């Protein structure tokens, strides 16, 4: 389509931004969306901080129950996966579509492994009888109830974000196949990469808060 112009009093043309095809708008919109996500997780971090301040000792004790090795492995996986995702975007921009597809696929795979490990961890807690509302947990100290309450809520919410990430990556793969994402048109891909960066960043904060204070 032809570029639309607006003409000023001197008859000079000025380009009009076309909302159908507004790269800057799409990028900016996604940043605003990430701000809402940050506010949401920020609220939970605030709750974590307040209860940590009130029940420091039982927080440290409960943190000791979590498996640092599993959590740490997951941290490594996420770190590598943001790298592959970013590399994927770069490849696509250079026109190396095939490499990009492989890298996005690898990222999605790592996200799935992350979820698997997470499931194992949750299972360990649950088999010890520790889950929200359970008799075992409610019999523990108040700080521990709050710690595990927040643990399940926050890692759960983060897990949902990982699941959404896998869905988005599959969508990206479909779009690449159907030509919806091309080397000269990568905004969706970039936004998904940005999203994945955010998800990994949240985990980087979650990990020390939940796993390391007891070490």
């Amino acid at each position, binding site marked *: 389509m032809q570029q639309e112009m607006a003409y000023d009093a001197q008859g000079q043309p000025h380009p009009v931004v076309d*909302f159908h095809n507004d790269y800057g708008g799409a990028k900016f919109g996604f940043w605003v969306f990430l701000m809402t996500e940050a506010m949401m997780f920020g609220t939970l971090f605030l709750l974590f901080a307040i209860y940590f301040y009130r029940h420091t000792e039982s927080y440290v004790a409960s943190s000791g129950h979590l498996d640092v090795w599993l959590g740490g492995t997951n941290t490594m996986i996420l770190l590598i996966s943001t790298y592959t995702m970013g590399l994927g975007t770069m490849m696509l921009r250079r026109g190396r579509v095939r490499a990009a597809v492989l890298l996005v696929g690898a990222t999605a795979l790592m996200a799935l492994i992350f979820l698997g490990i997470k499931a194992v961890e949750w299972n360990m807690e649950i088999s010890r009888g520790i889950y929200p509302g359970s008799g075992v947990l409610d019999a523990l100290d108040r700080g521990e109830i709050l710690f595990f309450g927040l643990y399940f809520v926050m890692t759960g919410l983060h897990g949902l974000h990982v699941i959404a990430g896998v869905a988005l990556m599959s969508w990206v793969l479909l779009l690449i196949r159907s030509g919806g994402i091309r080397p000269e048109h990568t905004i969706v891909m970039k936004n998904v990469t940005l999203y994945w960066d955010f998800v990994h960043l949240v985990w980087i904060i979650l990990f020390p808060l939940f796993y390391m204070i007891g070490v």
Partner: protein
Amino acid sequence: MPSFYHETHTMFGHLRNPVLQWIFSIDHKRIGLMYMTLMFTLFFLAVGAALTMRAELFAPGAQFLEPQTYNELFTFHGVTMIFLFIVPGIPATLGNFLLPLMLGAHDVSFPRLNLISFWFYVLGVILGISSLVTGHGFADTGWTFYAPYSIRTDAHVLSTLSAAFILGLSSILTGLNFIVTIHRLRAPGMGFFKMPLFIWGLYATAWIQVLATPVVGITLLLVILERTLGIGIFDPTKGGDPVLFEHLFWIYSHPAVYLMILPGFGIVSEVLPAFTRRTIFGYHAIAISSASIAGIGYLVWGHHMYTSGMSDLARVIFSFLTFLVAVPTGVKIFDWVATMYKGSIVLATPMLWILGSIINFTVGGLTGLTLGAIGPDIHLHDTYYVVAHFHYTILGGVIFMFIGGLHYWYPKITGKLYDEGLGRIAFGLAFVGFNMLWFPMFLAGFFGNPRRYFDYLPDFTVYHQISGVGALLIASGLVMIVYTFYRGLRSGRDAGPNPWNATTLEWHIPSPPPLENFPKIPYVDFEPYEYEAGEPLVQFDENFRRIR
């Protein structure tokens, strides 16, 4: 030129069925009108609930309502009015319709997302209303859902909470869309300080929507998890802290008050220049005060919690900050008064509503200051004084502004004129009725009548009876507006593009607007409100080149 009523873009290309053309339309104007229809239906339902409460309160003692039913009624009334009507109200309806028109854009930045927000809204409404007919009746917590009661009660809180959560999502998406649209799609030449003031109101609102709503969203989600799984974050028996719920709730809900009022202020700043035929006084001050109200508004939530156990220092700080918000608000009101000073005021219906709203809002604002001060608040907390205060600001202020805006843009939206005589009578009924309805409640509250009770001591009878009569008056005024608008649609005269001699861009295109608003986008290198001898200074030819 065919208008947007005749042709449209939809989510799925060309649809032939006219109903589907509406439901799937991604045209911001149609989406705005769909919101409008649904929201005003809900508004009248909530007014119905309010009239029922007022009837019950007409005499002391039980008349015809169970106490529990009364609790459900005021929750239904509050939830509907706040979450379904006034918080999303002006941005979703008039905002959606007008934002691209006033900016000189063909649509919002993300038209599909706009429609998706509308569907989320519909989903929220369905969830919210469904709890009326399923389970143990509607929620009975009040619209604030205070823990731990909201965790314990066996009324239907879950679906109401989820509804509020989804509505929050819808509101975030609208805000995001508006922010991006305002940043990206202003017509060439239109700097931020050449935007109409309604847009400034929407802009400040959109940032609050985006930054505050997620906080309440996650808080409500925690209450949901609390009820279903028993996580214990706000449950005192498990070590959780219910006062934290109040903090998190009001961190959103106080700024939400500005979500309601800032777009209303924007409407005032549009209507005043048009009916005084003058440039608005203090354009920059009004624009910047919107932004600073939004900013300071974040820091004052604690004034809702003076009686829930805070340190004295915290109370003093919150009280001070609360007073601080009055400053930018006062700036606006002085600017409006200065605009009217020596202007040739045209007392058409929109102007009457705006004048009425300024009066009511001033009463609401000043009584708000007594509540912001710690001493009086301890006395007045949870009495009818508070109820009167917020109805003065929201109903008498925001809704009056909203209705003024509806009258003002009615010719643009429909292409027709409504009957001025009917419009003025409706305003008279509503204004007198409103003050009769709520002024006595200041007194009742001051003398100690607590709120949220279905009964009261006989001493307060006279206040409640005056109030009851006022409620009937305002309700008939509201019904009359609907009739006026309906009559205008049927038999109103054609409005022409600019019946009010207004200056902003939307008045330079035909009424109702064509599908993509502007045949050609204009170049905007002039101030939004410029008059010369009572006529708009700037004029365009049909190709949107300046001819004056």
